[in-house]
């Protein structure tokens, strides 16, 4: 068995030699090769079936859903008419579209900007080992360990207009209380604050581990040349962390684009649609009322996938340029 496996895995590369060998050997030499191919396919089958059942088919169904006009009746009898891009056109023309796009962009970009810069600052800070630094660093991981339901509920209690601790602190300091979750101007800011708090530990951990791969020799050499801390950061740390930063930001982007639970628990995308992002909008269309609007919901979901894909391609491009 092992022998056939090896033949299979190196097959194509050794075609020349294998041909020589089969010429030298009597006819039975061909058979193990074909059997090997079958074995190879058999080994491949589990992962292929897995990919198809759990990835390819759902994606195909989602696409199909968004290109047909599904109502509850046609969902049951399976006779939904094919309408090309009518659902997408309807989504683009919906009065919720532009506000939701703006909210999604603001939510994602502002979250990433703050999560990354705060995470970077903390990583650099904790990289200078000092007493209790490990303990403090562990404490910063708490938001990451909590279930999102717990963090979001805690934030929505803290930001409650009338009985929240944040407004209590503000009025103690003589500042007018703010209707964090219930005013159209502040709702998005509130969910942003909560999301930044939740995302900082991820950035901290990845960037901190990236810092450990930078050789201390470089810093020592810089010190000898008389570089100050600021110069060391911008001339050594930041450029050498670029690959790590790129993957951190990409993962953050993909993750933040589809954030749903925090917003849903804190504001339900409201008041009105002032904190509605694409993820919230898609859910509202599909499951928000007693009458599911599945086709437009799938269209919005597909738009999210396309946006994430674009960022993924940009990343691959940037990475290739780095390698060259």
């Amino acid at each position: 068995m092992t022998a056939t496996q090896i033949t299979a895995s190196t097959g194509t590369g050794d075609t020349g030699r294998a041909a020589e060998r089969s010429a030298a050997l009597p006819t039975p030499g061909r058979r193990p090769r074909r059997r090997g191919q079958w074995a190879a396919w058999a080994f491949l089958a589990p992962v292929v079936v897995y990919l198809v059942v759990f990835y390819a088919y759902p994606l195909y169904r989602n696409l199909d859903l968004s290109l047909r006009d599904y109502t509850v009746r046609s969902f049951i009898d399976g006779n939904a008419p094919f309408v090309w891009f009518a659902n997408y056109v309807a989504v683009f023309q919906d009065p919720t579209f532009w506000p939701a796009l703006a909210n999604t962009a603001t939510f994602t970009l502002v979250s990433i900007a703050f999560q990354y810069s705060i995470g970077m600052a903390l990583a650099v800070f904790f990289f200078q080992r000092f007493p209790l630094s490990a303990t403090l660093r562990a404490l910063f991981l708490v938001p990451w360990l909590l279930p999102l339901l717990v963090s979001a509920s805690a934030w929505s209690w803290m930001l409650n207009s009338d009985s929240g601790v944040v407004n209590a602190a503000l009025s103690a300091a003589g500042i007018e209380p703010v209707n964090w979750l219930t005013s159209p101007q502040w709702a998005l800011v509130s969910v942003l604050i909560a999301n930044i708090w939740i995302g900082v530990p991820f950035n901290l951990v990845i960037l901190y581990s990236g810092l450990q791969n930078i050789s201390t020799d470089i810093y020592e050499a810089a010190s000898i040349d008389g570089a100050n801390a600021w110069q060391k950061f911008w001339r050594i740390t930041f450029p050498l962390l670029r690959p790590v930063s790129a993957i951190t930001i990409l993962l953050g982007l993909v993750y933040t684009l589809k954030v749903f639970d925090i917003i849903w628990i804190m504001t339900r995308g409201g008041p009105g649609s002032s904190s509605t992002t694409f993820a919230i909008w898609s859910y509202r269309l599909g499951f928000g009322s007693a009458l599911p609007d599945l086709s437009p919901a799938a269209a919005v979901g597909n738009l999210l996938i396309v946006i994430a894909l674009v960022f993924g391609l940009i990343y691959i491009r940037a990475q290739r340029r780095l390698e060259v």
Partner: protein
Amino acid sequence: MSTSITRTRALGALAIGAVAVGVLAGCSGGGAGGSGSTDATGGTYTFWDPYPQYDASSDWAKVIDKCAADAGVTVERTGFDTSDLTSKALLAGQQGDSPDILLIDNPAVSTLVEAGIVTATDENGLQVGDVAENILGASVVDGKTYGVPIGANTLALYYNPSVLSAAGVDPSSIKDWSSLNSAIEKVVASGKKGITFSGIGTEEGSFQFLPWFWGAGADLTQLDSSQAVSAVQLWTDWVKKGWAPNSVINNTQTTSWQEFQTGDFGFAENGTWQKAGAAKAGYEVMPIPAAKGGAAPAPTGGEFLTLPVQKDSARYATSSKIVECLTSTANVVDTDNTLNYIAATPEAQKAQLAKDPTLEPWIEAVGAAKARTGDNLGVKYPVISEQLWTAVQNSLTGAQSPQDALKAAQQAASSK
């Protein structure tokens, strides 16, 4: 070299993938309308309900078993989360393996009727003659009835007697909106908080707003009528004047109730399901007043027993027997008492009232209540409701005036 190997393999995988997708897609098309539960072993009937909190040893499960035994069959019961059950029922309908009996939240009945997966009473033989018409309304579509209510709950106005008496308010003086307003004003003047409710941007928000909307004389087919504007204006003024906390915009009915439980509030709009806790805390209850006096129609809540479409129509007779047993006065009173429901037939209501006289305001409120999907609105209701809660939110936050918010809502609702 190695990359070329990876590429060939990837191509192979893709090819297999493409074939498999085609096969699967074919299957799902042909598979619909498959065998399903009709082939289940003879004498076993499936029953889905939204009460996962009750296990096999609960009174609810026992009464089902008893009714099944009376009909000479056994019942296999599954409890689902309420929010999950509609989509589960739709999926089961698509796969052709619907349960024999489905107990489902009343606004979802018209959705299932629209989907064509539940049977009408003239087809399945269920008797609904005794049920109060206003409660039954949720399951009536185009003159046909599609289910039997297990019971009903609704909204009323709870008040805190100690807060009211300290403010010098006599609860019996509250008859209409203006007397309610002056009562709230007195409560606020005494240093307490006025009223709390749930104005969240979901179905819950519409559910809580409807008593005021209907109480003003407005109609769901005309969201921007002057009566509708006056109802939104009432809520908006309460928030603007600080009579209601700003948090109502984001309150669910549960968080609103928690606010009321602080003991700082004079009034709270909430449902039948809080009555046990309210009685313990010494809170009392009155029907929600209409704008010009009398009890405002509040929306009904509660579940309906429906019989989903089966391949073997002979099963309906047994299913009907089980449902009629479950909704018979002898059985339904105990069930409704455990579920905190008011019974749906006048006879069972009398039996409930004889056992517990404090139910009187609730029976009055349920008597005045209206089904949300009634008036033959059916599946138009969810669309209208979404626009209504959005308009209420936009007005409460001050983003739009009540007139503008409702005008936009009416436009959006009629364009869909």
